[in-house]
């Protein structure tokens, strides 16, 4: 057996630590991107790299946000019972939490009922087949109330539909406007006029047009299309404006290189224009998705698209003693999902755009 040299052992440990720290440093950018900036200092402190310095960072990135949230909850809990409304006092954090739990439980029950419904149907059909009455077999869809999670999912689908439509229109139009001053001059007045229009003003028009054109069957309900198109109309502008700005502000020297190389129009757009403008295009897309998500809730309220907006509206009309608490659950859900959507776009942007800083 060979004797293990303690200095060698220490060296190996040191090397391992260095490797671990480089990995943490690499991951740090991604932690920031996904909204967990405290992860890197936390991991570093655990790995034993300057724990005191890391504590300072942790204080800023983790403890201060937690403290501020706790302060907010405290103020809410103290102040809310003092406001009396026709539906009782404003619910505090505890009631809101219990409503969130209740909504989750309701979703579970609904899922059980759904399973039970299909089981019964299977059974019935099996029996009919066994009795030789195959022509009486019926397969029905379960039509229970949408659960809270169904509503969230509907909202997300709607906002994505609207957002994708807006992107498909805005990015090519923005590129055209950025490349050609003539196109820009043609589009600009329309953009300036339509940009500030509220979704609530668009909605009646969209409703009438969609009702006239779309039958409402074939997979997508009318309310879904109306909400999605309203989202499109309102979330078009940030992408359009940022894309044309990004394209118009390409480095003039790079444009000259493109001229000397006599790139074909297609190569010019794909090799030069798009990569240059991508960071700003993504900035526009992020803004658009944010606007779209905000607009969606209002659109769903009026168009009765069975998403979060309709949930809020129904609870408001319902007016039970739990309604306000449920609406607050919805408000928090809307906020958290909006934040996650933005982080998602930011992560995609970091993945696919070129930047000098990386």
């Amino acid at each position: 057996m060979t004797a293990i040299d303690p200095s060698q052992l220490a060296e190996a440990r040191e090397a391992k630590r260095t490797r671990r720290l480089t990995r943490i440093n690499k991951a740090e950018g991604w932690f920031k991107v996904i909204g967990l900036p405290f992860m890197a200092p936390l991991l570093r402190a655990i790995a034993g790299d300057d724990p005191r310095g890391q504590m300072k960072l942790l204080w800023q990135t983790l403890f201060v946000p937690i403290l501020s949230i706790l302060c907010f909850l405290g103020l809410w809990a103290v102040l809310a019972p003092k406001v009396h409304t026709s539906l009782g006092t404003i619910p505090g954090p505890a009631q809101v939490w219990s409503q969130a739990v209740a909504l989750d439980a309701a979703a579970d029950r609904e899922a059980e009922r759904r399973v039970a419904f299909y089981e019964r149907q299977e059974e019935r059909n099996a029996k009919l087949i066994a009795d030789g009455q195959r022509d009486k077999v019926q397969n029905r869809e379960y039509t229970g109330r949408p659960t809270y999670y169904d509503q969230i999912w509907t909202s997300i689908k709607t906002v994505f539909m609207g957002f994708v439509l807006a992107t498909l229109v805005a990015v090519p139009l923005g590129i055209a406007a950025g490349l050609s001053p003539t196109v820009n001059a043609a589009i600009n007045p329309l953009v300036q006029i339509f940009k500030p229009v509220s979704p609530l003003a668009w909605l009646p028009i969209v409703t009438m047009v969609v009702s006239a054109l779309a039958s409402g069957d074939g997979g997508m309900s009318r309310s879904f299309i109306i909400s999605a198109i309203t989202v499109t109309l309102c979330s078009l502008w940030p992408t359009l404006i940022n894309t044309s700005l990004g394209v118009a502000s390409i480095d003039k020297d790079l444009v000259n290189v493109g001229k000397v190389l006599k790139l074909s129009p297609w190569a010019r757009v794909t090799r030069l224009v798009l990569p240059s403008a991508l960071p700003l295009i993504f900035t526009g897309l992020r803004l658009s998705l944010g606007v779209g998500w905000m607009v969606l809730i209002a659109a769903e309220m009026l168009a009765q698209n069975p998403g979060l907006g309709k949930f809020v509206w129904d609870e408001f009309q319902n007016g039970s003693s739990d309604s306000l608490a449920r609406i607050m659950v919805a408000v928090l859900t809307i906020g958290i999902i909006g934040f996650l959507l933005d982080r998602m776009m930011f992560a995609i942007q970091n993945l696919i755009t070129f930047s000098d800083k990386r």
Partner: protein
Amino acid sequence: MYALPRAYAKASAGIARNDERYLEFSQLHKIYPTPKGPLTVVEDVNLKLRKGEFVSLIGHSGCGKSTVLTMAAGLNPISKGAIVLDGTYVEGADPERAVVFQSPNLFPWLSARENVAIGVDRVYPTASRAERQDVVEYYLERVGLVNAMNKSASEMSNGMRQRVGIARAFALSPKLLLLDEPFGMLDSLTRWELQEVLMEVWDRTKVTAVCVTHDVDEAILLADRVVMMTNGPQATIGKITEVNLPRPRTRKALLSHPDYYAYREEIIGFLEEYEHGHKKEAA
């Protein structure tokens, strides 16, 4: 030792129509309209270049030497007069007139190889993929980037980027190479290194070249003729000096050459004369 890539040899094998007047600037003017009336920046530039000649264009900053170059590149419209290259009038930019810019102007999201390839794909449309790759690699090797071909342009130092810029220009197999203060942004040591790289690559291809510079030593080192421009506005060619120094040149060999200082004095003398603005000739 290193044969030129096949696709390059094929593309450059045409017989020139007039080798003595391969590139000709005649009565070249650049006039910008201003609120106070038209401003003549460059006036009546006349110059003929032989095929394979290297000319340096030197003058004080703002004298319009870069304007002449960008007009030859086709990036700046000609106000009056003409530039004729190999029997055709210069109109608009074209890869047959390659440009090395002062800042390297690489596409930062592409690697060194892709930056050169984007032009090569354009000028050798009939060559096979392997042939084109040959051209790209040949020039990247010549400028000393064998080990950095796949490095992203955004990760490179300025010196390395300008090496890629040089490779990109030469790889286009141009009829005319235009260099617009190509080493102006680099520190002296890197500049010397790259001057030698440029000389080395140029010696292999002997492409007709015009180099704008305000560095006297650089002008002499690179050129067969140094063209000195008077100060703008209304800048024009003041003096032309033939540089009869043996090639291939190196910076060190030039410093010990007896004629070198005479050339240097001549050019510096001219530049000093024009140091305090435009001198009106006695009418």
